[in-house]
């Protein structure tokens, strides 16, 4: 398709600026650019068509199945959008008097309370803009805790299992810690002996996802958090997979001291196009004084902002991505205390249904009951037919399915990580399984079609090596 620059014709276009109604100002000529910027000149209808065409070439949950493991691409009910678009929310100024923004403060306050209830935490900040930002904020809580106790000098290490999200070690390093990786055991959980060997006086904390990136709930979780606490460390729960357990099990009850949740995953706000997301961080009461500023409180005069006693300061401007919080608030209230656990139960049911339909053919990396997602190992198929996880994923594009997460977790070399979510019907899952099984058959009978896939999409298979080695990042006018 043509780019905007290619559709551009000199002199065409629109006047969008109103007449100047203030005195004109002459800039110092040294500050002026020599040539006019090369902006596309295009009519409104052509501009509209360009973006409509672009939208037609994307794939979202509105188009079809999107089982992207670890990303929880569930359907986002439209009522969330409607409520977050209310004038009373969108027309707010972040610095207007608090007494005129009581409704917004109430939304922040009540969403915090509800997610604290779901996670078993005592307090929460809404500032972090996404999951990794939440991880970093949580680690700063841990850092401030050790600092105040005079132990930061010696407690320099954060323990991370080898199945962790890549952001975990990255956040730990950002927060000034060293990372110690512990291996998984044969069941895909944390190897307790290796964990015991890894902890000590230098342990600042543990970062753990439960269920983990294999979609498995670690049955030793209480012992794991106890080992860390006994060594003097704190436990951080990466809430990326909270969609598997919300309403059933709480990180706070598993022994975690702080947690982030991804509102854009678990609490159903649109994501996948780059956000905005939100990664609120909850903590137990003994950490709440370190939370970012400001926090919302409620007393007889209504809602107001305050600065926590030993705050770490701000991690983002104002109150975070507020309209994402509004969407999550609407979602939680819509589902209620019956609907929240039902959603996670269905997410787990759907994943197990798909896993069991596929496991006669495909190899399941850890063949046991899974939670909200499962990991297939394409390794055996690759040894037999040469068809890799990448080939299977590319062929799924031909079927109108967004491919699962590939090559993650790293401990399964040819991984495909499938998370159907609770919002897909049995018919959708059946159809998807049929496609998966067909591809398996093709791998054995007609592998060429998989090597060249996708064959029915707007573009074929891009040369990702060339793209990575010689990226073209800018439109060239020549």
């Amino acid at each position: 398709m043509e780019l905007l620059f290619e559709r551009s014709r000199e002199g065409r276009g629109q006047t969008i600026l109103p007449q100047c109604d203030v005195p004109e100002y002459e800039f110092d000529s040294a500050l002026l650019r020599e040539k006019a910027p090369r902006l596309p000149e295009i009519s409104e209808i052509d501009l509209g068509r360009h973006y409509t065409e672009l939208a037609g070439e994307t794939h979202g949950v509105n188009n079809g199945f999107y089982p992207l493991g670890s990303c929880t691409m569930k359907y986002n009910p439209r009522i969330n959008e409607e409520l977050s678009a209310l004038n009373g929310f969108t027309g707010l100024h972040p610095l207007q008097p608090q007494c005129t923004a009581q409704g917004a403060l109430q939304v922040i306050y009540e969403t915090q309370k509800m997610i604290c209830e779901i996670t078993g935490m005592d307090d929460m900040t809404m500032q972090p803009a996404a999951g990794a930002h939440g991880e970093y904020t949580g680690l700063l809580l841990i850092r401030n805790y050790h600092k105040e106790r005079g132990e930061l000098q010696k407690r320099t290490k954060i323990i991370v299992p080898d199945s962790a999200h890549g952001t975990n070690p990255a956040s730990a390093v950002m927060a000034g810690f060293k990372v110690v990786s512990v291996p998984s055991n044969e069941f895909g959980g944390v190897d307790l002996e290796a964990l015991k060997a890894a902890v000590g006086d230098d342990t600042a904390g543990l970062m753990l996802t439960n269920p983990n990136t294999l979609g498995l709930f670690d049955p030793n979780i209480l012992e794991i958090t106890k080992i860390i606490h006994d060594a003097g460390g704190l436990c951080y729960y990466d809430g990326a997979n909270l969609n598997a357990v919300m309403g059933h099990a709480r990180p706070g009850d598993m022994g975690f001291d702080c947690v982030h949740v991804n509102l854009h995953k678990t609490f159903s706000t649109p994501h996948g196009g780059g956000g905005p997301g939100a990664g609120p961080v909850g903590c137990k009461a003994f950490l709440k004084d370190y939370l970012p500023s400001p926090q919302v409180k409620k007393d007889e005069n209504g809602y107001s902002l305050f600065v926590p006693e030993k705050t770490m300061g701000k991690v983002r401007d104002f109150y975070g991505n507020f309209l994402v919080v509004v969407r999550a608030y609407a979602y939680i209230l819509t589902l209620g205390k019956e609907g929240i656990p039902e959603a996670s139960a269905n997410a787990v049911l759907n994943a197990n249904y798909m896993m069991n339909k596929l496991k006669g053919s495909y190899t399941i990396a850890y063949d046991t009951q899974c939670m909200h997602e499962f990991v297939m190992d394409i390794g055996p198929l690759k040894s037999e037919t040469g068809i890799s996880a990448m080939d299977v994923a590319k062929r799924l594009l031909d079927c109108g399915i967004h491919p699962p997460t590939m090559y993650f977790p790293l401990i399964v070399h040819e991984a495909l990580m499938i998370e159907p979510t609770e919002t897909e019907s049995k018919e959708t899952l059946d159809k998807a399984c049929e496609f998966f099984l067909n591809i398996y058959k093709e791998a054995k009978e007609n592998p060429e079609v998989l090597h060249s896939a996708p064959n029915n999409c707007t573009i074929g298979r891009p040369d990702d090596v060339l793209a990575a080695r010689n990226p073209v990042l800018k439109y060239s006018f020549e």
Partner: protein
Amino acid sequence: MANIDELLKYSKTHEWVKDEDGVITIGLSDFAQEELGDIVFINLPMEGDEVVAGEAFADVESVKAVSDVYSPVTGVVEAINEELMDNPALVNEAPYDAWFVKVSEVTDTEDLLDADAYAEFCESEKE
């Protein structure tokens, strides 16, 4: 089957090692480059940096993932192969020519495998 240079020694993290009068040259084995896939970026240390046996001294990025490269010896980086930074594909094309660093002032060396033992080790890794 990955190609294994008979004249080199190997670490269990798939680096090859050549010892020339105390100057240690380190690179990635053919098995490693095959497992990684097409390499698109390589991050090397600076000349004069200290490397420690068993710790990462460089990283390689393929279209699949970023992986650490571990030093089999403790010592000081005497030279780096700057050509690799411009053309990381050399590691895929000729892994035993595409050296990463040369290390001198070596004070410690890991137990290394000879070609036969390494071939056996690669087989066991595949299972």
